[in-house]
């Protein structure tokens, strides 16, 4: 099965700044997904990242806040823009049946 390297694993950021999370897959995957997970809660899908086209966002998530790049079939980034404390969460990427290890974001 594929292996996904996600980084950073954690970060503490100032409000108003942006953080870009990267996911590298060791094999090509058609679709990649970005999720948010509050501690002790389930996963909420943010968007689907498609290579060669704009990401598809779920209700409640917008491109200006969570811009996504998918330059090829093995890589994707999610940016959390203009952060506020409410953005503090764990962010996860997935491709195929595999997930990254997550990014624990704390906004102060």
């Amino acid at each position, binding site marked *: 099965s594929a292996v996904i390297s996600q980084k950073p694993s954690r970060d503490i950021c100032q409000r108003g700044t942006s953080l870009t999370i990267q996911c590298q897959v060791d094999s090509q995957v058609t*679709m990649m*997904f970005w999720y948010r997970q509050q501690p002790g809660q*389930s996963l909420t*899908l943010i968007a689907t990242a498609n290579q060669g086209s704009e990401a598809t966002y779920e209700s409640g998530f917008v491109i200006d806040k969570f811009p996504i790049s998918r330059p090829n079939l093995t890589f994707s980034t999610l940016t959390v823009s203009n952060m506020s404390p409410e953005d503090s969460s764990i962010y996860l990427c*997935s491709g195929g049946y*595999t*997930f990254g290890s997550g990014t624990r974001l704390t906004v102060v």
Partner: protein
Amino acid sequence: LAKTTQPISMDSYEGQEVNITCSHNNIATNDYITWYQQFPSQGPRFIIQGYKTKVTNEVASLFIPADRKSSTLSLPRVSLSDTAVYYCLVGPPEGRKLIWGLGTSLAVNP
């Protein structure tokens, strides 16, 4: 996308078989049933996937009745390291868009 219902929590002891049942009454014809395991501070890990009848791998078995409105994940002889949250999902195969429920928090006791 079909929604799933599974117990919020379960308790077991080392060496026992654990069966976690998931209800998915509105499963579509082309939906598969997929189970994931998640440990704290880690991403979910794929356990098993099936469409109908029984699927078995080195980790677990998945039992799906003919009407496919439910499924049961069976973990043989659990150990302390099986303490985790287990998610049941239904949807297209190959990790396509899935809706995640609350999962079942399994606690394995010595």
